[in-house]
């Protein structure tokens, strides 16, 4: 493999991660405020289909992306309304919406299957794009890829560095304390669930109008990315930077899988395609096992040096969800 091929490959990894980044950052924001939006696998499919349909009909990419965002926000609104206002289980309504959005996408997308539509053009950033190695990898992408990187930075800055952003953590961790300090818990949750859903809604068109342009119905190959993004949110410990790192790692591994396939002919392609999922279980196991009772019990019985080493490793990997994640909030 030549250096040029590696650079092209890595540039592809950054682009392929873009929709997963949008979805992971969106979900992270929503869950930080305490709202699990389990629907995002379906939302990505529906937003991909709807934005492609609009872009084909109007020949306007911007309208396409707006449509995707609107779909994401609408699904998030349904999830929020049913869980925050009507106090139903977030997991339940999210699960229904993931199936319903998927089937609606397949049903309404039927007439658009296989049509050719507009596609986001590449845009090389002047000067930066000419830097050797880094230029072609980072700065010779399309605008959605740049936006995905921007989304990571803005989300991180907003959550950790701004006053209103701090409120997200309060609402997701200790809603009653936040309420006592005058926060409108339900409204804050609505807002961040909707903002998060809008970002998730960008993931669909980033596929259907950019990296996997078009709509092919059930064989579009988009089914599954939403679940990956949900797992990455946990893997990232509800932190935008760590979650995004997970998304790039995921895209990198997928690329490696493609590259390595000719080297490992014994593994059928169907198996390669699902490889991310056992990997997902494994990573969740790594970040979750430190929370279990038996591990802590076993650790307590180990000799000191072994215990310290293992618990340090586990604590490095370990993640803890926002305390009030998935819980209803009701004023006392």
């Amino acid at each position, binding site marked *: 493999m030549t250096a040029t091929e590696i650079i092209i490959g890595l540039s592809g990894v950054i682009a392929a991660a873009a929709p997963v980044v949008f979805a992971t950052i969106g979900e992270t924001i929503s869950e930080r405020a305490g709202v699990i939006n389990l629907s995002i696998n379906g939302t990505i499919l529906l937003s991909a289909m709807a934005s492609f349909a609009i872009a084909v009909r109007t020949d306007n990419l911007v309208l396409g992306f707006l449509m995707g965002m609107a779909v994401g926000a609408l699904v998030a609104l349904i999830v929020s309304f049913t869980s925050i206002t*009507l106090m139903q289980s977030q997991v339940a309504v999210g699960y229904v919406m993931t199936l319903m959005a998927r089937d609606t996408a397949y049903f309404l997308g039927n007439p658009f299957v296989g049509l050719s539509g507009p596609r986001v053009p590449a845009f090389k950033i002047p000067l930066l794009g000419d830097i050797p190695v880094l230029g072609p990898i980072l700065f010779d992408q399309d605008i959605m890829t740049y936006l995905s990187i921007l989304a990571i930075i803005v989300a991180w800055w907003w959550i950790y560095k701004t006053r209103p952003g701090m409120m997200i953590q309060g609402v997701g961790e200790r809603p009653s304390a936040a309420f006592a300090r005058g926060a409108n818990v339900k409204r804050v949750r609505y807002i961040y669930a909707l903002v998060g859903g809008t970002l998730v809604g960008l993931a669909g068109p980033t596929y259907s109008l950019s990296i996997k342009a078009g709509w092919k119905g059930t064989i579009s190959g988009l089914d599954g990315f939403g679940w990956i993004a949900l797992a990455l949110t946990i893997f990232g410990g509800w932190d935008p930077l760590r979650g995004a790192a997970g998304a790039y790692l995921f895209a990198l591994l997928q690329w490696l899988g493609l590259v390595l396939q000719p080297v490992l002919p014994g593994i*059928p392609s169907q198996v390669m395609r*699902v490889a991310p999922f056992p990997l997902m279980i494994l990573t969740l196991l790594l970040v979750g096992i430190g929370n*279990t009772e038996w591990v802590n019990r076993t650790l307590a019985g180990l000799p000191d040096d072994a215990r310290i080493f293992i618990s340090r490793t586990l604590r490095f990997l370990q993640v803890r969800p926002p305390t009030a994640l998935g819980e209803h909030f009701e004023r006392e």
Partner: protein
Amino acid sequence: MKRVLQGLKSLSFPAVTVLLALGFTTLVLLTTDASPWQAYKTLAIGGAGSLRQVMNVVVAWIPLLIVSMGLLVTFAAGLWNIGIEGQIILGAIFATGVLRYFQDTMAPPGLAIFLAILAGALGGALWAALAGVLKTYGGVNEIFGGLGLDFVATAIVLWLIFGPWKRPGIGSMSGTEPFQESLWLPMFPDSRLSPWSLLIGLASIGLIFFLLRGTYFGLKLKAVGQNARAAGRMGIPTNLYMMFAFIVCGALGGLAGSLQVTAVYHRLIPSISSNYGWLGLMVAMLVNYRTIWAALAALFFAFLNIASVRLPLVLKVDSSLSGVIQGSLVLFALMASGARNRWLRGDEERSS
């Protein structure tokens, strides 16, 4: 008078749910070229137009019913067993393995089929136990553990069909070589409906109804589901109860998978689970986890699945309409249940 009003109130929510779902589906249909009226008519004919269609609905009902019954157990323990899809698949794989072993032997076919079904239940239970161990001892939420295992199960089935178990010549998406007829579950003439499957399906209703309503065990399971921490403080071994719920549900899922092999397809196909696992979760949610109602809801969902098969042929619209109807029913049922709680609470506050 007051009682009549109360009765009307309790009836009004399901009625509103159905009307809203119908309204939403009609809205979706209006965006296509097909007329909603034609679509509903096609569905009615497709699901109940002939004895043959009705039998097909029952054929689809049986696995969905068994799976839904299993899911009621995991739901009772407060678990989202999304891994059910993979558990069905593993059941089908285990059953196929046993039948392949007995093919072309002198073993009595009845015994072979019996062992295949038993192995199916075992396969599903093992796959569920894996999700359960990940949950209880690995700290992996059952939604993601189960989901990952679903995809792994799909990969295994594809690998078997295109690899070790491929048809003579070249493997294909049409599945493995069909079994000899003596290894099929006996069926009603001219149909794929087996009285044995039907019997097992009906028995699963009784079993789960009894387990959840009539046993001390079911009571404790529900205590775990309501509040695992409190149940643990009361001395209930919560992890053990959760594992048990997983295993019962997985066994039923695997049973459904093995029946798809022995009674319906007579071979292993890539889509052997037919999404009945995903759908079973919706069935249980639609009826708020009540056993008898779940059996009826499963029948209706099976009807929609079979009925929608004709949609692309007759109206050139996609058969995923059934999913739109099922999804909107469950969504509006959830909303209605939330609205009812708010309303009733409002009533109480006013009267007190």
